[in-house]
C-alpha cells in the first residue's frame, strides 16, 4: 500500500507538470484561433459572388485574399501557398509597401495594374501583406484611379483602366 502511495505521488507530480503544459498550450493556441477578417468581409462575399466572375483577381492582403479564395473561388494578389510562385517576395513587398502603403493613389493604382488586379479589397482592420500589420489607407482609393463599387465596413474598388 505504501509502495503504491509513493509511486502515485511521483506520478501526480508529473501529472501536475503536464497539466501546467496543457494550460500553457491553450494560452498559446488561442491567438491562432482568431479569424482576423471581419464580419463585414464575410457579408461582402455575397456581393463578390453576385457581381464578379470566378477567378477574378482582387488586390488584397494575405488574410483577405485567402478568405476570398476559400469563400468565393476568386483569386488574390497575395495569400496562399508560396512554394512555387515566381518572384513571390517581390510581390508581397509590392502589396505591403506600394499598394496598401503606397505614397500616392497613382502608385497604388500602378501596382494593382502591374499585377493584373480587377478590384481592390480594403477592409476595416489592419492588413498584412507579408511584412507588417498596418491600417489600410482609404485615401489612396480615389477617382480616377479607383471607383468604389461596394461597402463601407469593407470597401471594394474597381481598378480603373
Amino acid at each position, binding site marked *: 500500500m*505504501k*509502495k*503504491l*502511495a*509513493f*509511486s*502515485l*505521488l*511521483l*506520478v501526480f507530480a*508529473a*501529472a501536475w*507538470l*503536464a*497539466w*501546467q*503544459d*496543457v494550460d*500553457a*498550450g*491553450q494560452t*498559446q*493556441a*488561442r491567438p*491562432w*484561433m*482568431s*479569424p*482576423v*477578417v471581419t*464580419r463585414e468581409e*464575410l457579408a461582402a462575399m455575397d456581393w463578390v459572388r453576385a457581381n464578379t466572375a470566378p*477567378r477574378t*483577381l482582387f488586390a488584397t492582403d494575405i*488574410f483577405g485574399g*485567402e*478568405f476570398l*479564395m*476559400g*469563400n468565393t*473561388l476568386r*483569386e*488574390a*494578389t*497575395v*495569400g*496562399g*501557398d*508560396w*512554394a*512555387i*510562385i*515566381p518572384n*513571390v*517576395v517581390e*510581390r508581397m513587398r509590392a502589396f505591403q509597401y506600394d499598394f496598401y502603403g503606397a505614397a500616392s493613389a497613382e502608385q497604388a493604382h500602378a501596382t494593382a495594374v502591374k*499585377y*493584373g488586379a480587377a478590384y481592390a479589397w480594403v477592409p476595416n482592420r489592419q492588413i498584412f501583406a507579408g511584412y507588417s500589420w498596418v491600417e489600410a489607407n482609404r485615401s489612396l482609393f480615389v477617382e480616377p484611379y479607383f471607383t468604389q463599387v461596394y461597402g463601407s465596413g469593407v470597401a471594394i474598388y474597381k481598378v480603373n483602366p
Partner: protein
Amino acid sequence: MVFNEFVMPTYGNTMIHVASSRELVETGQYPFADDYSYGGGQPNLYVPVYRFAYAEAVMLTGLPFDLVGRLFVMLFAILLPLGFFVLCRELWGEWPAAAAALLASAVPELLIYTVRPLPQALGLALLPIAFYLIIKNNRIAALAATALVVLTHQEAGVFLVGCAFAFFALKLLQALAAKAEKRKLALDAPAKLAFACWLAGVAVYFGWHFFITGNLDVFGLAQFQNHEGGKVTADLLATKAGRAVLLLGALGAVAALVRVVRKPFEPLNAEYFALACAGAGLFACFNDLVGIGVFMDRFIVFLGVALIPLAALGAKKIFDLGEALAENLL
C-alpha cells in the same frame, strides 16, 4: 475554442485548402494546374488528400465548409490520443499507453497545430497510426498509411520517412555489429518494412511533385530558397514541446538507451523505434546546424510526437522508481 468565433480561424492558410475543396464540390474538378495562390496561374503543388477529404465530407453531409472544418478539428482531437494509445500499447503496454494518450494534450505545439482545420492536423493525427502499422509489421497498411501521410502534409511526410529511415539505419547498425561479433541477428521484418516505407514515401512525394510541376526540383521551393522558419532555442523548445513531455521524454530516452546498451543483440524494436523517432525529430529541429536551415521551429511539433512515446516510457519508469524507492525507504 473551436466554435467561439463567427468563422473558422484563418491563420495557417486554412482558407486556401477550402478553395481547392470548394472548386471540387462546386464544379466537380480539382484545380491541379491552376492554384488560387498569389495571383493564380501556377500549378497546385500542395498535396491533396486533406482537400479531397474536406470536399468529400461536405458532399456527403451537405454541411457548410466552415462547419465541416470545425468538425474536422473535433475528429482530429479524438484521433490523436487514440493513435498514441494504440502505438504505445504496442511499444510498452497498456499503462504507458494510457499515459501517452493523456500526454498528447500536454504538448502546446501539438494543440496549436491540431485545433485549426489544417492538413497538418490530419497529418499529425495519422502519424502515430502509421508508426503503429510499421512496428506491427502490417505491410500493406503501413505502406498505404505512409502514402496517405505524405499526400496529406509535406512536413508530416518528411518526418515519417525520416523516422522510418532512422529506425532502419539503427537496426542495420545493430545487425552489422552482431555480425562483427559473429552473432546471429538478422534484420527483422519491421526494420525492412521501415525501409520500404521510407522508399515508398520518398517515391510518392517526388511522384506528386513531378506530376504537378514536371520537374523534381524540391529544393527550388520558396521555403528552401527563403529559409522559412526560425532557430530553435532551449526556451522555445520548453515552451512549445512542454516541460512534462521533455522531462519524461528525456527519462524515457535514457531508459531506452540503457536497455539497448545492456542488451545489444536483442531485437528491442520498441526502444530502437522510439529512439529513432526522437533522433529524426531532433535532426529536423536543428537542421540549421547541418546547413539546411528550413522550418526548424516548425518541426518542434513533430519532435513532440516523437517524445510522447518516450515520455510514456518515462512515466512508467517513474512509477517503477517510486515502487523501488518506497520498498527501500519505507
